[in-house]
């Protein structure tokens, strides 16, 4: 009897050792490929894009719209549908037959607006589903976390909705690219407009989402409003996804401030703004002036969520579907036909990022990551809806016009909530990337598992 058991034990041991031996060699071979090989280069007839967007949590609405835009971009890349903004795009490298002759397919992940979950989803898409590129993210914390993961694995990350200065500032990465504008640009664009509308002698109170985006947005807004002569009474950090902001709003009225700046986004902004309005803040008189609320970054989706509360509120946007240019019209028409509603700015930046990556591969003639990165760096283009745009090589940030928007008093329908008050030209929001610190890191493709 005991002999049998020893044999069984031996068998198990042998099995364990054998399994180890079987599965290890693969990991020593992988460094031996030809030099022009980066992670997940497609070998078959398809190329896989990974779309990592929040499908739950405070930014879920934006995530859903991004996903719609990505699906549309994939259609257009594969030559299905009406081609959308590909017709107006200044680069004509894409032929509507996929990318480099390979049909584009996609996989999706849910970031849950949490760094861990986002990185898990990205890893699954890279390791299991062999995605060549990851794009998406709503929330800068997630974007920064996924960007550093992608840098480590040698996968290009095309950020979608991330507005923090850090994404292409101190946390910039060689493998990360951002089309969206940032908090600094919002501040520069919004400051003069606010001073003109509300006067130069104002006291501001900030409520700020407590993470990288909120911090940099608060800093940028402070800088630009103080340059106009405003003073900052207080800046309070609120947790992301707080839901109830009343405990943060009550002290505002007794602080002597006459402007409330809400550095919130998504459902947080919808909640904080609605609650502020319910508190009667906009009817109040402080220091002999009307109390005002400013939301430096908002979008059509959030305006829908906030309803009447958004009327007359100033903010900035990356893009608006009512812009009058060929790229915008082509994209809005195509998106509207597919989904029956105009796209949000999140959708537009997502769409543009997917197209820009595909175009860079086509121009580079390869999927090899360092070559694609070089094709994107310093790339100047037009026709995707934002006017003339340049991808700056030093920090992988796009420079283009910034919109100052205001909530409409009399909207025609629920898609007509914002009015573009001013288009601030790209050269006014351009800055020197040096003082922001950060280091892009090397081009060399790392191999992945």
């Amino acid at each position, binding site marked *: 009897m005991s002999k049998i058991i020893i044999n069984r034990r031996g068998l198990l*041991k042998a099995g364990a050792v054998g399994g180890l031996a079987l599965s290890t060699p693969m990991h020593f071979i992988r460094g031996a490929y030809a030099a022009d090989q980066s992670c997940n280069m497609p070998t078959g007839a398809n190329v896989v894009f990974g779309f990592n967007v929040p499908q739950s949590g405070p930014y879920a609405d934006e995530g859903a719209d991004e996903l719609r835009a990505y699906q549309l971009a994939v259609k257009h890349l594969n030559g299905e549908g009406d081609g959308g903004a590909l017709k107006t795009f200044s680069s004509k490298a894409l032929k509507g037959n996929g990318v480099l002759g390979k049909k584009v397919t996609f996989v999706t992940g849910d970031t849950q607006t949490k760094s861990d979950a986002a990185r898990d989803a990205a890893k699954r898409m890279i390791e*299991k589903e062999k995605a060549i590129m990851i794009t998406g993210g709503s929330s800068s914390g997630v974007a920064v976390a996924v960007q550093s*993961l992608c840098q480590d*694995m040698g996968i290009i990350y095309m950020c979608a909705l991330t507005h923090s200065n850090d994404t292409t500032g101190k946390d910039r990465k060689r493998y990360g690219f951002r089309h969206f504008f940032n908090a600094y640009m919002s501040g520069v664009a919004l400051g003069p407009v606010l001073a003109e509308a509300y006067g130069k002698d104002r006291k501001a109170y900030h409520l700020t989402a407590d993470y990288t985006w909120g911090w940099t947005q608060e800093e940028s807004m402070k800088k630009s409003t103080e340059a106009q002569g405003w003073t900052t009474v207080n800046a309070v950090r609120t947790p992301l996804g707080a839901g109830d902001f009343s405990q943060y709003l009550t002290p505002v009225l007794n602080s002597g401030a006459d402007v409330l700046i809400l550095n919130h986004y998504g459902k947080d902004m919808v909640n904080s703004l609605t609650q502020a309005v319910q508190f009667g803040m906009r009817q109040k008189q402080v220091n002999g002036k009307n109390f005002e609320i400013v939301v430096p970054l908002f979008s059509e989706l959030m305006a829908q969520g906030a309803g009447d509360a958004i009327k007359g509120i100033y903010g900035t946007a990356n893009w608006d579907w009512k812009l009058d240019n060929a790229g915008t019209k082509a994209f809005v028409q195509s998106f509207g036909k597919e989904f029956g509603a105009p796209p949000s700015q999140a959708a537009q930046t997502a769409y543009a990022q997917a197209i820009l990556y595909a175009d860079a591969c086509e121009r580079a003639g390869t999927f090899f990551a360092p070559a694609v990165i070089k094709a994107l760096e310093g790339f100047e283009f037009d026709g995707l809806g934002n006017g003339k745009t340049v991808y700056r090589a030093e920090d992988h940030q796009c420079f283009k016009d910034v919109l100052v928007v205001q909530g409409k008093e009399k909207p025609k329908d629920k898609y007509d909530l914002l009015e573009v008050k001013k288009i601030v030209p790209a050269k006014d929001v351009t800055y020197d990337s040096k003082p922001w610190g950060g280091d892009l890191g*090397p081009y*060399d493709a790392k191999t992945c*598992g």
Partner: protein
Amino acid sequence: MFGNLSRNDWVLFLGFSAVVLLAPILFQPIGAAYPAILQKFCIFGLFAIGFNILFGLTGYLSFGHAAFLGVGSYAAVWSFKLFTMNVIPAMIMSVAFAGIFAFVIGFVSLRRSGIYFSILTLAFAQMSYNMAYSVLTPLTNGETGLQLSLKDPRIIDAMFITPGAGLPRSNIFGIEVSGGGMPGFYFTAVMLIIGFYLSMRIFRSPFGLMLKAIKSNQNRMRYTGFNTRPYLMAAFVISGLYAGLAGSLMASVDPLAGAERMQWTASGEVVLMTILGGVGTLVGPVIGAAVIKYFENIFSAFNENALNNIFSFIPDAVREPIVKLLSLFVGEGWSLTLGLVFMAIVIFLPGGIMEGVRLLTSLFKKGGNGNKPAVSGHTQPAE
């Protein structure tokens, strides 16, 4: 040294090790054979094993174990930032910090039992979470999470090697652990096996027996002259050490630590894992951890397209309603499915998946040669 392990235990241990090490092959058919998820299985398995030493043996339900996981992660990332990318010092630092943390929290919380104990641990964990999230931002980098940067000193590494371009990967004497390769998985797998072995030793030791006695009747223990507090304290700290180790492994395979790891949902998750797999069993918690992580990562990735592909053999008219219905349960709805599975298990198999396994084997054995149900079964004392 191996005295108190029976032959059955050794078979179990070797079988367990074999399954863990062969996971990249065994899990291929269910689509879970890529390194990131296998690492998750091992890490959360280890976390649940540790939790089970407290909950399974003493019956003290802690709702704050994620705090130790978080402390472990932060300690490991700081070790990577300050000293070296080698994972050994990081693990030592994590375990030490988590141990101290567990001692302090345990010292206060263990003055109460039952629901009061659970609430106390929950409060402490939520406090740690909020501190990591806002007050301790310089130490934890708040919501953004603590990450490596090119400017980190890495004193020990700097003495021996010139840094390459870009961020270094964590390693164990030259073998890369982070960066998503299989070596990272084998590293976590070996740690899981060691952790499993230690937990088995604890289960079979007089100390383990004492913990079980506390679970069945603490008053009787006191009457017989035992002071139960030191035993409870030891169990609490040991499970905290496990959680710290799991946290350091998490940071080793992916050098980032975020505050959400300490949130109460994360603490609740390990309770679910343990109950789902089987409280007080040796293998149960690991199975529970794997099931939950599988649902979270694989099930959540299913979308309507994937379902359409699966049911492509059914005609369109029938397929559409089926896909519509099922799509409620996959993708974002994965937690709904998990909830249903959890309810089913708690109602029909209160002992978790392991009870199901035991029922099946005893049925099989009865049908075979009429033996009694397996002797190694750990039936739950009624509480």
